[in-house]
């Protein structure tokens, strides 16, 4: 991982956090679909990044997002778990013969089917954990589960839109 990648990653993280707290935070569809577009930060960390660094990134970004949502610790817990699961999930998802375009991940290089199967389970687990810690138990189980379901689809859509908008086709 060279210096340019680290810099690009930082810029991406800052922009996505800003977009999350200014824009995505206010996007709520039908009182139940929330958008957590900042998850894209973790989905796009290059595969060969040091795992310790990845986990710490998850923790720090989580705490920053928590400050804006007044839910100290909840986003951080979900993010750390997401990053940890992604390390192993991306190993399982490795196409035979390795990644064509090096360790970078986006929908243009990998194709939409691969990207959906790679990111949807991760997004779902993240939001599942988020809402169940927030509800502090299973008291409102079905209501919370429906929120998780709609939010994960909404977040997935937003993540795809961002990918198609900002990442050029590989030649």
């Amino acid at each position, binding site marked *: 991982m060279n210096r340019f990648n680290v810099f690009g990653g930082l810029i991406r993280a800052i922009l996505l956090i800003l977009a999350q707290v200014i824009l995505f935070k206010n996007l709520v569809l039908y009182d139940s679909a929330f958008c957590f577009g900042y998850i894209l930060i973790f989905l796009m960390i290059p595969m060969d990044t040091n795992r310790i660094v990845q986990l710490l990134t998850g*923790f720090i970004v989580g705490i920053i997002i928590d400050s*804006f949502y007044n839910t100290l610790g909840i986003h*951080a817990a979900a993010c750390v*778990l997401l990053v940890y699961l992604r390390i192993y999930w991306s190993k399982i998802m490795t196409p035979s013969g390795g990644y064509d375009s090096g360790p970078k991940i986006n929908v243009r290089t990998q194709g939409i089917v691969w990207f959906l199967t790679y990111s949807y389970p991760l997004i779902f687990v993240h939001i599942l954990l988020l809402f169940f810690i927030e509800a502090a138990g299973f008291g409102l189980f079905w209501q919370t589960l429906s929120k998780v379901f709609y939010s994960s689809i909404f977040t997935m859509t937003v993540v795809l839109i961002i990918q198609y908008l900002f990442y050029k086709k590989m030649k």
Partner: protein
Amino acid sequence: MQRLLQILYKYRTFILLILLEGICFWIIVNSNNYHGAKYFTSSNRLVATIASASNQVSDYFRLAEQNKYLALENAKLRQRILSLSDSASTASLLLDSARLGIKAKVIDNSLFFRNNYLTLNRGHADGVHSGMGVVGPDGIVGQVLHTSTNYSTVISLLHSKTMISAHHNPTRTLCSVVWKGEDPLYAELLFLPRHIPITPGDSISTSGFNSIYPENQLIGIVSEVHLEDEATFYQAKIKLATGFYNLTHVYLLDLSGKEEIDSLNQEINKLYE
């Protein structure tokens, strides 16, 4: 020893995961009691500045709607002035105006989580301190949690820890209001005994016993009533008076006797411990 270190090194990712998750859950459990937690809430200056900048933009789109609400509130106040002929109501108005302390603007508000918070653009530089009650133009809104110099975070009425001492207006019976997390428009009414006649349309207001809100601030209107055959208390739903969807201006109240009442209550609690 070397083998131990080797094992630790091999599982370093997993150990770090456990460690970080441990920290997270420790924070989640303790953030309500831990004072340092206030630097990671929306009353933090940087966080609040960003929230207030984005609020300035979104405000612009709601101007027409807000004008309508302010005009309505004006009309209501005018109506009250007209009915000021008898001295008793003048006295109560004087009391009220002494209590309507600080006017604040909501710069951030959430509705759909289990625990919701608001951020206001007034902090301890303006005399806000934690524990103050917050009321909107139509009814009560919440209670101040943390303050910084220019901003404050408020626990919304829409929060799992909400428990408001209330009374059923026509009969002055004491009861409690809680929010179960289902709908930002409705709350539940608890502990209203079955011998009290209650019908949809009755108003529920604060009792003034918890020394956060003054007496007779409207909380909501009863919308649904159920009574099981064996139950001691009614199961009732109330429609909240405050419209949390479009809340922009609120008032922070400072009850003069609050600290004295609180310390008296603590003395009583000590006796029973």
